[in-house]
């Protein structure tokens, strides 16, 4: 399978990464070579194999449902490019 330019544009839209024309061309070539490499897996029949779900045989631990932290709004906002002291600020969404 090759990844043509339209597919690159489609997935870059899904991934929210804008690309100029040259990047689309380069990525079409790179991603095609990577996908061809990946498709070596098709040589292997896996019809009767169950997919791996966990690499370590351990079940998740449960814990009591209690609040142990919180009230750290200042810390959470500290690294934001723009905030108003209470919330993150983003470009206007609703007209």
């Amino acid at each position, binding site marked *: 399978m090759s990844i043509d330019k339209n597919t690159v544009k489609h997935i870059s839209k*899904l991934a929210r*990464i804008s690309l100029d024309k040259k990047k689309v061309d380069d990525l079409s070539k790179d991603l095609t070579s*990577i996908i061809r490499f990946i498709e070596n897996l098709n040589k*292997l029949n896996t019809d009767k194999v169950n997919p791996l779900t966990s690499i370590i045989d351990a079940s998740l631990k449960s814990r009591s449902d209690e609040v142990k932290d919180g009230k750290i709004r200042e810390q959470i906002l500290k690294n934001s*490019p723009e905030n108003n002291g209470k919330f993150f600020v983003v*470009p206007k969404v609703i007209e």
Partner: protein
Amino acid sequence: MSNISEFSLTKIVDGIKKKDFSSEEVTKSFIEKSKNSKALNSYITECFDYALKSAKNFDKKKDTKGLLSGVPLAVKDLFCTKNVKTTAGSKILYNFVPTYESTVTKNLWSQGAFLLGKLNCDEFAMGSSNETSFFGKVLNPYGKELVPGGSSGGSASALAAGLTPATIGTDTGGSIRQPASFTGTVGLKPTYGRCSRWGIVAFASSLDQAGPMTKNVEDSALLLQAMSGYDPKDSTSIDTKVDDYTSKLTEKVKGLKIGIPKEYRVENMPKEIDEIWKKGIDYLKDAGAIIKNISLPHTKYALPAYYIVAPAEASSNLARYDGVKYGHRAKGKNLIEMYENTRSEGFGDEVKRRILIGTYVLSSGYYDAYYLKAQKVRQLIKNDFDKSFADVDSILTPSTPSSAFKTGAKTDDPVSMYLNDIFTVPVNLSGLPAISIPAGYDKNNLPLGLQLIGKAFDEQTILNLSLAIEKRANFKKNFKVWWR
């Protein structure tokens, strides 16, 4: 004492304890060397003032209860460090200052160590040559045209050059072991779940694991012990006993069974890699281990499966970089355009490639063909190991299919770069522990490493076998200092 920076971590810990030298003397020695070694570009952030202050404070109290009392340590810039910039080698996090500390670094500090600096790495740990960092490529002490390997390339380079007594890296597909092999150092990837992933910038969550990078095997045991342990904040960290690796460390490996997998003898592998592998077999035989030929038939499918699983998880993990919560933000006419421009400007080429591959294999209609298929193959690879480990205690392979290569040699062809990790990736897919130890040199005087793979949570056995090899290989670093 001017040569402290050449000492092993263990020797430094002991020396401080016995008052042969002070923490300040140790710290000054590493700071001085680091300042004179900028050409290697191994640091992203220097914390020299903080380190010196910490050393002086330590010397006043001399509390030597911790495993790493009074020791300055530089760490890979993928570990979040409270109030110290953490970039993951990316423009998108160029100004990110965490308000919290990763569990693994917290463990080191609670054992008496303190931060010396943050070390360069491939962007988001994606790369095998440390050429994808936004902060520039790192060079290998073994030659100014050579890569140090990746993604923990800054860690490996700084360690080999004596800029830090030891360091920690992360390994998703070989990012500790391959750079260790390229720089003649010891790198260990613990069992998945041995160390907490909390506070480590995530790449591929089912594969990522932090581990020690050290000058020798003894140091590896010590640092592993200091950083390991269950953490309620990482639900995949395992609540199982952490061995006292140091006191149990022994080169007595008589009777242990070592598997030699025929599938690791790959096409076009340099003769020298095969020879170092044979030497490793001889060393272990000499130590009384029993060598057994084994087969891991699905080995060749590991790398293609990895390049589905890792990008898929990465595309999901890296969705958080949106210019809203932290890091770089670009301008845009509306919210969507702001997202798209931020991510376009903030991520480098390799990261974009992987996000897009991951997005593609997870996109509607392709899930079964790619991701599900890869998870089935992953099961087969794990089964191969499970079967072998019913019969052997450890598996010996080369660490890498070549020695360190030249900068720029593989940057135009992503797949040729990926092939570097052919021997290291199967271990991550199966969650097993593995170590790379320097075992000799090729004809160009570049270090070559051997890899020992262990059973889950049996880091002790591979450390012991490594010690047996280390004693026999008698590896000594032999680069000439060209960078100062």
